[in-house]
């Protein structure tokens, strides 16, 4: 019930208990991951055997390979960053172009296009992955057969991973940027044009600054979701694994707390990014 109505004591306490339980449910998994990165034991499990930084700085000589010595994991982080950077650039560029297409252009078939743009959100990631995998392989086979071209980028690998993640993240950035563009006051643009500004000047000095929060927001979301993507990536990955796929492989085998260390690193990185985004958002309110 709402605050303006009388709420019996049992209801108030039930609400409080529920809230505490909910927050515990939400944060318990993250807390144990962080905590066991510092446990002085070969496996991320209780009991607590004392504090150690081995899982961060340990090297092969101590028998415990820490995160900063684990070249495989560090390589995975680098691969994920590379993929995420490409996906971010692609999806923000295409998202911006799509936003103008949806909000400003008039053409036949616009309804169909705008509906199709939503489709990637309702296609499971695994299926996006296999369809792109199958299609790219067919193209590569065709090129090989007809022209004996060896189009390696169409075989499972990072190019396909980038394209696969982009295929649905483009929808999210399109929706974010289009939503902001829709609220733009067009009289500002007309005023600038009347005062003699060129189209390019209007775009650079009025539209881009106005769209900035949406552009930054969709860039951050694209980067994070690309970094975290698993389903689509798993289907398209070649020999270089991004971090999530690598972690998954190790989790199945039963991993050392070095995975906790890398997870803690991920948590801190995404928390920083989120904080920066919230800060940036509150400085210039929409």
């Amino acid at each position, binding site marked *: 019930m709402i605050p303006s*109505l009388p709420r019996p004591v049992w209801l108030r306490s039930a609400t409080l208990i529920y809230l505490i339980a909910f927050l515990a449910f939400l944060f318990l998994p993250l807390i144990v991951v962080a905590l066991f990165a510092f446990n002085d034991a070969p496996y991320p*499990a209780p009991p607590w055997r004392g504090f150690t930084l081995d899982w961060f700085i340990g090297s092969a000589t101590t028998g415990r390979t820490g995160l900063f010595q684990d070249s495989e994991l560090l390589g995975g982080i680098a691969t994920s960053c590379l993929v995420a950077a490409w996906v971010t650039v692609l999806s923000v560029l295409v998202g911006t172009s799509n936003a103008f297409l949806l909000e400003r252009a008039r053409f036949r078939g616009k309804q169909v296009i705008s509906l199709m743009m939503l489709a990637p959100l309702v296609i499971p990631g*695994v299926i996006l992955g296999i369809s792109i995998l199958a299609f790219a392989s067919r193209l590569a086979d065709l090129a090989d057969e007809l022209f004996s071209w060896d189009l390696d980028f169409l075989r499972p690998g990072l190019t396909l991973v980038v394209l696969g993640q982009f295929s649905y993240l483009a929808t999210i950035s399109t929706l974010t940027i289009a939503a902001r563009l829709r609220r733009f006051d067009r009289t500002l643009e007309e005023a600038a044009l009347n005062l003699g500004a060129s189209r390019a000047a209007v775009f650079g000095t009025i539209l881009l600054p106005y769209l900035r929060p949406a552009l930054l927001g969709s860039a951050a979301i694209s980067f994070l979701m690309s970094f*975290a993507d*698993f*389903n689509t990536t798993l289907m398209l990955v070649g020999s270089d694994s991004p971090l999530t796929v690598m972690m998954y492989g190790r*989790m*199945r085998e039963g991993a050392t707390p070095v995975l906790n260390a890398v997870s803690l690193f991920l948590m801190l990185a995404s928390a920083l990014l989120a904080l920066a985004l919230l800060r940036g958002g509150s400085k210039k309110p929409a």
Partner: protein
Amino acid sequence: MTDAAVSQRWRTRLTLWLLLAPALLWLGALILLPHVDLAILSFRARTGPREYAASLAQYRTFFDEPLYWHVFVRTAVMSIIATALTLLVAFPVAWIIAKLARGRASSLLFIVCLIPFWVSETVRTLGWMILLRESGVLPGLLVKLGLTSVPVELLYHDATLLVGLVYTSLLFMVVPLISSLESLDNALIEAAYDLGANGFAVLRTIVIPHAAPGITAGCIVVFMLTLGNYLTPTLLGGKNSQWFTEQIYTQFITRFNWEQGAAFGFLLLGLSTAIVVLGLRLSGQRFAEVMRST
């Protein structure tokens, strides 16, 4: 027509095509054509080395082999249960954020709810594994409390799987619920209360009808994500918990039987689309509206 008008028309044309090109390239090359190709793949069978013929064999295998459709049905049922549970868990917290907490407390609580979802699913699943496995935190705690004499394995049960699925889906339910509850006028609830309605009646006749768009949007997104999940079922559900996405992966990657995998992919896509359409029909909403509200 003057020269200026002609050049103006050409400029509009050119701009339109420049804007249209990336969209068409994206939708055509990454969404439409791959799915057409997948459909073709699923409707053919190998008749010899590098020889294929149109056939329904892949779909027939699905119905003939009990394992496959059992897993399919199981995935669907578990996804429905997980969606319902997510709604039950998420609704009170959405209510608290939208109606009970005020000002800063409300936005703070909302941000706190978002935090876990900024971290990848892999990390969250690792947390559940550390908590629940036989040598993990919770079984140890249960022994200490004297509830069990030896540590019990809490992983690899259907219930565990549901916990994991609900956990990963929460955010996608909470956000649309909050936005639909926030627009509900408190005066309506007060009026109903003054007229003698109890809490349950208010919920049934006022809150739920008003929040229906948010509930539908949340349920559709959660169902879809659960159906297509791979990580949580394979890691928390263990070996005897088959999930349909695992079958697709096995056919495609392990066995390299792409025709069969494509057919499985289409069956999953069909199920997911059917549920989306059904959900929209039941609540009488349009796809575009629902997607915008999430």
